[in-house]
Each structure stands twice: as structure tokens, then as C-alpha cells.
């Protein structure tokens, strides 16, 4: 009998339907796994009573034959989603104690589909980071280790808690968000599947804002099918979010077995960067071979402005963040540090409440938007953004259906290894992923293989606007060819 925590989301869904086990048993199995995994620091807040109550309701509904799409399936929720009555902090000291009186649209969609909330997951503070080392709750430790090693590795970020929890089998799937790669990069680092849908596919209402023109919610899961199931529920139109598109949500799960026969897959030459590791090159070539064998046509394409996406992102994202984080002033919610007067209160509150990376980004954002610098920096970056998007439009106009690239420049690194002196060193992790947010396109990371030390490496597929279906179809081809990842056996807990 397979351990309940070894099941995929779709296998668990089938098991509940066939009454092989109950929703309560499924939830309790995951809660037991979480109890042993404290050292990973993936869950920062558990909701055991709520989870069991939800599982009990799920069993009743399943018993009556009224199961909804995610009935009884236990999930982890990144602490960036406002969950009614459950503390939500964006992993920042400035929001400690904040208990939302409302539910984010994305999580409301999950509960309305019958899912069970195990708790809130760790992340980089305000989603700013690529390693989950900036959280006010401490770093997340990846369940993966190098072969023969014991060095603690990062799970990636900012959705490090989400990726670590899924890879360590602490939940069947997790919600996450992606502004510059924060779903896809941690998925690639942990051998899981992560999709950032098209900008506007999911509602951002009730999701703590980092950069409003880049943020998107998406799932991290064990398989491509699970990813399609989760996105199908998370996505919806929403009158409360004017940037959320009024487009119908397709049956993503139905697309998973479509195959790629007749599709044209583009290989962008500018993604072949200097000093790229041979292992990543080989993986990229393997990906091309798998898709070709499945009937796709592989063509070389050019995205000329690729190298400017990362620097442009580090103007646009901090600029938008400086505006979004202005609301944390100690007045209406969160931390307040008393001051001589209102300005002093603001300054002390924000100095005490924000961590170093967040402060750094707010300051850069403030600078590039300030009088005298707005044109030279922000406006220029927004024009370059138009050019980046245009590069993709021209490639798609030539009949390309999706683009294949590596997901990350390397496998996971050790905690504390990067970003010590130079913040830019950490930013380079996002080099393959930021273009996708800048252009508003959908992108999926799928496990493709391992490096010489046994650490996961991922491939990325970038799609046309609102064509996540092609990403699921191509992702499934890669998953079938590469084989399902054997998630790491617990070295943690007793």
C-alpha cells in the first residue's frame, strides 16, 4: 500500500473517490509528516483544527457523491495569500499579527472546490528573493542534499516553503506566486513542477502585492497533471481585480495528454549564456530531443533583447514595490513603533519592520522614480519592456507555439553561499525566468534531470498569452521522457 503522502494530487483524488482511504486519514498523514519536518522550516503556521474540520466536511460530501474538484485534498498556502482568520504576514516582521478579515480570491477558489488547508508556508519577505533566505521566520532548508553531503541547501525562492513542502511530501500541492521566477526557480531546484500563468489568468485580489504588473499566483506540484488540476481551480475572472482578464478557464487537465505532434518549439539563441554549465546545455538538448521524438518541430529563434530583461526588471519591480509597500506605515495594521511625530513613527516602523533586502529594493525603487531620474531609469526600463514583449510576439507570429529554455543557470546552492557581498549575484538566479514576467507570458518549469551531485535541474517552457494548455501538453511530454522524479527520502525528523 503506497504511503498516503507518496501519492500525487490526482492519485489521492482517485483514492478518495474509490474510498480507498478517507479525507481525514489523508490530512492526518500529512500532518504527521509536517510534525517530523520542523528542521526544513517550510510551514511557519499550521492550522490543524481547521484542516481536520475541512477534512470531515469533505468525507461527508464524498460519502454523498457530492465531491468538488479538490474535495479533501490537503494543501499548503504561501504566506502571501490572505486567509481569513489565519495570520498572514508575507514573512515580514511588519505584518506580524495581521489577521485578515477577508479571503484572497485564489484561496477562496480552492476552499470552494473542497480543498483542505494544512497551514501557511514560508517564503522570502514580501516575495523578494531567490533562495528563501530573507524571511522573518528564518530560511527554508531544502529536502534535497548533494550526493554524500550534508550541507543545507536552499530550495530556491521566493516560494521556497511551497517548493520544499511539496518535495518533502508535506502537502499534495502548494500555492505560490511568481514576480521574476519565484514559482519556476524553486520548482526547478526541488524537482517539482511550477507554472506561472499568463498575467491576468489568476486574480491578485487578497494576494500581498510586490510588483503589480509582474505578480501572478500559480501552483507548485509533484506532476504536470497535478499542476493542471490546481491551476484550473486557482484561476478565475474577478470583478475585484481589474487586471484579471475576463477569459474563460479552459479544462487544463484535458490538455495534459494532447501531445506535441505538429507543434513548433523555439530555441532562443540568446539564452545560451557565456559560461553556461555543460550539464545545463546537455539537459536543454535532451529536452529538444524528447520533444522532437514526440513529433514537434524544433527551430532556432531570436529574442534579441533577452539580456536586458534582468536589469530592466531590477528597475521596474523595485519601483512598483516602493509604491506597494508605502502602505506599511504602522497606522492601519501590522507593526507600529512609536515616534516623536507621525513622520518619525513611519520611519522607525518601517526601519524595524522591513528586512535588508526589502529595504534595499524600496530604496532603489524610490530612487528610480524620483524627480530627475524617472525618465532615465523607469521610463527607459518600461520602453525596454515593450521591446522584450515585442521579441516574443514576433517569434510567435512566425508560428512558434512555445519556447524551450533551461529554468535556472545552476542547481540549488548552499544556504549562505550567495549574495553576501553583492546583491546582484543572487539576482542572476532569475536570468532565464524574468523575461517571462516582463512580457506577461505563461511559463512552466518541469524537472528534466539531475546534475552530477544528484540535484534536480529543470527545463522551462514559455507559451503564448493564455495558452497554458500547450505548456501542460509539452510539459507532460518532458515528464514522460525524463521520468517521474524520485523525491528525496527523509533525512530529517525522527
Amino acid at each position, binding site marked *: 500500500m503506497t504511503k498516503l503522502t507518496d501519492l500525487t494530487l490526482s492519485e489521492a483524488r482517485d483514492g478518495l473517490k474509490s474510498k480507498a482511504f478517507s479525507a481525514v486519514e489523508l490530512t492526518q498523514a500529512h500532518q504527521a509528516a509536517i510534525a517530523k519536518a520542523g528542521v526544513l522550516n517550510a510551514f511557519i503556521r499550521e492550522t490543524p483544527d481547521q484542516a481536520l474540520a475541512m477534512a470531515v466536511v469533505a468525507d461527508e460530501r464524498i460519502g454523498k457523491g457530492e465531491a468538488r474538484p479538490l474535495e479533501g485534498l490537503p494543501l499548503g498556502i504561501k504566506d502571501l495569500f490572505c486567509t481569513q482568520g489565519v495570520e498572514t504576514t508575507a514573512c515580514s516582521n511588519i505584518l506580524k499579527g495581521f489577521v485578515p478579515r477577508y479571503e484572497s480570491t485564489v484561496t477562496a477558489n480552492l476552499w470552494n472546490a473542497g480543498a483542505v488547508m494544512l497551514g501557511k508556508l514560508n517564503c522570502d519577505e514580501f516575495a523578494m528573493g531567490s533562495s528563501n533566505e530573507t524571511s522573518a521566520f528564518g530560511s527554508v532548508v531544502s529536502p534535497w542534499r548533494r550526493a554524500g553531503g550534508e550541507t543545507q541547501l536552499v530550495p530556491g525562492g521566493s516560494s521556497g516553503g511551497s517548493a520544499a513542502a511539496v518535495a518533502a511530501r508535506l502537502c499534495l500541492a502548494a500555492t505560490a506566486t511568481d514576480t521574476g521566477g519565484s514559482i519556476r526557480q524553486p520548482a526547478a531546484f526541488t524537482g517539482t513542477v511550477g507554472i506561472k500563468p499568463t498575467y491576468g489568468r489568476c486574480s491578485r485580489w487578497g494576494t500581498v502585492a510586490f510588483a503589480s504588473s509582474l505578480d501572478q499566483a500559480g501552483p507548485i506540484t509533484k506532476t504536470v497533471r497535478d499542476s493542471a488540476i490546481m491551476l484550473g481551480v486557482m484561476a478565475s475572472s474577478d470583478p475585484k481585480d481589474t487586471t484579471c482578464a475576463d477569459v474563460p478557464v479552459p479544462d487544463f487537465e484535458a490538455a495534459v495528454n494532447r501531445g506535441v505532434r505538429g507543434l513548433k518549439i523555439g530555441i532562443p539563441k540568446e539564452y545560451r549564456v557565456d559560461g553556461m554549465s555543460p550539464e545545463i546545455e546537455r539537459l536543454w538538448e535532451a529536452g529538444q530531443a524528447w520533444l522532437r521524438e514526440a513529433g514537434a518541430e524544433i527551430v532556432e529563434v531570436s529574442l534579441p533583447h533577452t539580456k536586458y530583461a534582468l*536589469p530592466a526588471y531590477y528597475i521596474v519591480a523595485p519601483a512598483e514595490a516602493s509604491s506597494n509597500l508605502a502602505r506599511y506605515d504602522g497606522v492601519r495594521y501590522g507593526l507600529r513603533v512609536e515616534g516623536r511625530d507621525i513622520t518619525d513613527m513611519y520611519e522607525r516602523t518601517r526601519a524595524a519592520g522591513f528586512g535588508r533586502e526589502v529595504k*534595499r529594493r524600496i530604496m532603489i525603487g524610490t530612487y528610480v522614480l524620483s524627480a530627475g531620474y524617472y525618465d532615465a531609469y523607469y521610463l527607459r526600463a518600461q520602453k525596454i519592456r515593450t521591446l522584450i514583449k515585442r521579441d516574443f510576439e514576433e517569434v510567435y507570429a512566425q508560428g512558434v507555439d512555445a519556447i524551450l529554455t533551461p529554468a535556472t543557470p545552476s542547481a540549488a546552492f548552499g544556504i549562505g553561499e550567495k549574495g553576501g557581498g553583492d546583491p546582484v549575484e543572487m539576482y542572476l538566479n532569475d536570468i532565464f525566468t524574468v523575461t517571462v514576467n516582463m512580457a506577461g507570458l505563461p511559463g512552466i518549469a518541469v524537472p528534466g534531470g539531475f546534475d552530477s551531485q544528484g540535484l534536480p535541474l529543470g527545463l522551462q517552457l514559455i507559451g503564448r498569452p493564455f495558452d497554458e494548455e500547450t505548456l501542460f501538453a509539452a510539459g507532460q511530454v518532458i515528464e514522460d521522457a525524463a521520468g517521474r522524479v524520485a523525491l528525496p527520502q527523509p533525512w530529517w525528523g525522527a
Partner: protein
Amino acid sequence: MSVDQQTVRRIAKLARIAVTDEDVPHLQGELNAILSFVEQLDEVDVEGVEPMTSVIPMSAKQREDGVTDGSKADDIVANAPASEDGFFLVPKVVE
């Protein structure tokens, strides 16, 4: 382009974040590292290019001009560090 210490203090003031004397040189170094990284954007010819204003082509949604929310003062002040009778309490703002 790089920033001097006076500029760092000015930015901190605009951002309403208190910085100590010890913080300033460190922040200056970090900000300059980022600014030097983004300098390569000057290479790009942006003549005649419009800045991106909408990520996905869409026009602003509108709704009926009617009251659809409200009457929940308790919810709104529930997380306030200091409040009274449905008001947020703050240090004196106006002299």
C-alpha cells in the same frame, strides 16, 4: 550613475525609512552595485518605443456606480495598532 551618502539619506527620507550612520555607507555600496548593473540599459535604442502601460491588452473594467460594500468598520480597524470608536489613532499630524 552612482549615489553619494547625501543622496542615500535623501532617498531614505523619501521612502520614510530611518537609517543610522552605520547603515549609510553599506546601503550606498549596495545601491551602487545595482545601479552599475542596470547601466547596460543605456545601450538600447528606445527611439520611438512606447513604454509598456498594459501587460496584456485590455481596457479598464468599469462597474455600475452603486454601493456594494461597507458597513464593516469593525473589520477595518480590527488589525489597527491603536484605534477608538472606529478611528485609527496616530500621533498628531497637523500642528
